[in-house]
């Protein structure tokens, strides 16, 4: 019998599995087609090019109610990416700090960090988002509190930042000598000055790395590593100063005009609260990862390094960290993935991310639930596949060689 012969057994099973799964898929798709036709609906994505008609409070590319649903979806995606990237950065900072402090021999601080980690790991993220959001709306003053001769609230940091229960008003930079901007299509423009700054920054980083290589080469040659940080600093500071002089930059402070602050940029609390809650929550998980990673490097490693005469700093950077990172980075990246997916809880603060635009208002206004959800899940899937393939790449590169 086919099932008893090793050669064919595998094929038999696979064929059966394939048939079963295809049957299931066929059944589902058949049902869907039938249901759609019963409702007189079809499956197409034309709606993406229709007028969206709704406004989005915080956008990274130009968008109005007249833009298409497609553009709204892109705005949502960019918002998702924005909060995800910001979140990953701060979560890492918080997590690494907390993880290291948890290992510190300071009893008090270690305990505090344990409390932080346990609190955030054992309480649902949604609650943290709601709480942080509520803290913002409940405890910060309304913009109106800043008005009047004797305002109830005051701006902080030399009168440049206003914390309100709607948004944080921060100053922007304005060019004195503008040189126009570059249109990169699709209505997105970038100021030439910004481009100049970015180019200069990239060049400075490249130069810095070249400098590092040179220093390494010198060290290989002579044994002494030349002091490079002053040059590095100059590489970064001087061109930036030059650009600053060339373009002339003024700081535009937010000022209260009518109901709201104007002039600067208002970063909505929906974003800030979501960002903060995601960072704190994910930070607690990262703290555990970091702690486990550092603990995974055995004490013998640092002892061996000390015994060779390497200083604490060098031991950390040459022996402990490279090994700890191998342990830390894969789970760290899957935390990034989680954070990105969790950002869909933006729905709790009304932040207009991909779920809220494409999977929310657009879906609702157009009634294209199947199309919208398929598209949305596809986009999330692509995002997560990108992140996880980055992780696999990393894993493959740093795997320790064993016998």
């Amino acid at each position: 019998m086919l099932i008893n012969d090793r050669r064919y057994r595998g094929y038999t099973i696979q064929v059966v599995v394939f048939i079963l799964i295809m049957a299931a898929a066929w059944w589902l798709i058949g049902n869907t087609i039938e249901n759609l036709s019963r409702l007189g609906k079809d499956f197409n994505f034309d709606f993406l090019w229709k007028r969206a008609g709704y406004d989005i409070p915080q956008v990274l590319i130009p968008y109005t109610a007249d833009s298409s649903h497609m553009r709204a979806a892109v705005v949502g995606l960019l918002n998702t990416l924005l909060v995800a990237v910001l979140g990953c950065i701060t979560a890492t900072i918080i997590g690494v700090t907390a993880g290291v402090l948890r290992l510190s021999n300071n009893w008090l601080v270690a305990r505090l960090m344990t409390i932080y980690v346990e609190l955030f790991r054992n309480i649902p993220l949604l609650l943290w988002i709601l709480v942080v959001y509520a803290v913002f709306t409940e405890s910060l003053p309304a913009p109106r509190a800043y008005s009047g001769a004797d305002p109830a609230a005051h701006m902080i940091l030399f009168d440049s930042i206003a914390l309100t229960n709607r948004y944080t008003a921060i100053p922007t930079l304005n060019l004195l000598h503008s040189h126009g901007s570059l249109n990169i299509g699709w209505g997105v423009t970038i100021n030439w000055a910004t481009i100049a700054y970015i180019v200069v920054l990239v060049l400075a980083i490249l130069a810095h790395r070249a400098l590092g290589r040179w220093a390494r080469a010198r060290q290989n040659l002579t044994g002494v590593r030349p002091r490079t940080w002053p040059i590095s600093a100059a590489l970064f500071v001087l061109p930036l100063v030059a650009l600053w002089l060339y373009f002339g930059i003024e700081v535009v402070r937010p000022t209260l005009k009518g109901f709201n602050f104007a002039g600067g940029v208002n970063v909505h609390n929906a974003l800030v609260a979501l960002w903060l809650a995601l960072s704190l929550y994910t930070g607690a998980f990262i703290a555990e990862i970091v702690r486990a990673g550092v603990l995974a490097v055995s004490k013998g490693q640092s002892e061996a390094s000390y015994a060779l005469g390497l200083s604490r700093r060098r031991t950390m950077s040459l022996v402990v960290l490279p090994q700890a990172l191998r342990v830390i980075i894969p789970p760290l990246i899957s935390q990034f993935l989680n954070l990105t997916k969790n950002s869909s809880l933006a729905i709790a603060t009304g932040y207009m991310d991909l779920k809220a635009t494409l999977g929310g208002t657009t879906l609702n206004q157009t009634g294209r639930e199947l199309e919208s959800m398929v598209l949305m899940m596809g986009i999330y899937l692509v995002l997560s596949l990108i992140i996880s393939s980055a992780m696999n790449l990393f894993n493959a590169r740093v795997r320790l060689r064993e016998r």
Partner: protein
Amino acid sequence: DTLADVKARGMLNCGVNTGLVGFAAPDANGNWQGFDIAVCKAVAAAVLGDASKVKYVPTTGQTRFTALSSGEVDVLARNSTVTFSRDTDLKLDFVAINYYDGQGFMVPKSLGVTSAKELDGATVCIQTGTTTELNLADYFRANNMKYQPVNIDSNAEGEQQYLAGACDAYTTDASGLAATRAAFANPDDHIILPEIISKEPLAVAVRHGDNNWGDIVRWTFFALVAAEEYGITSANLDEQANTSQNPEVQRLLGKTDDLGKMIGLDAEWAKRAIAASGNYGEIFNATIGEATPIKLARGLNAQWTQGGLMYAPPFR
């Protein structure tokens, strides 16, 4: 066939608001109450003979139409505005308008604003996925004003944001504003601005394509309206059924002419529908009328005989 499904299930799935006091909200024991709920009950009573055989499916502004078109609910009674595209493109059928509304704004008195025209630059709280969202965009554009939306997901959240001052104005249907304001600790600190920026005919919706089911819901609602017109109340229902000489009432209550049969129901369907929570006027007064904390006047929703728009076609 929805009617057969509902009968087979013995339960009517009714999509309602997640919580808007007066229209649809569960009390502490989970009993749903409100103006929209009464419609659900009437339909259940007409179809299943028992007003309590309703499963209320709470839907947000974002999920309601999907719930309906995917078959999750049989009837959507969730203060949803009839619009052209919803009726056509979304493949819904708005069978009966149970409340004529319009979108308004509520602001704190202390803001010193008396007209919506003064709201340039204001922050406005708005429920996502609603026509309100679109109207708002249109209104401000038409008047060449700017605003910052704060998106909220439910009325409860909107209240929280509004009361905390996270938005200057709260916009939704005027009825909803009234309901919300009524529930505030200090309702007098807030005013509803005079401008009504849109027409919001709130209607009960069913899926496109099942006309018989649409008829049942539509005529159940009209039965409530007609009952008010003819003075049939839950109190005098039996009496009217037995003694009324008005042929229209007799037809309506199943004494003569088996109207029910034409829509696949029995003769007493309308009687049961009216018995569920009274006629349209009774429902209105009990849930959102002047005597309730919501304090809504009948206004446009009065009978046509009183100068309102409530007008039930003849039952014959």
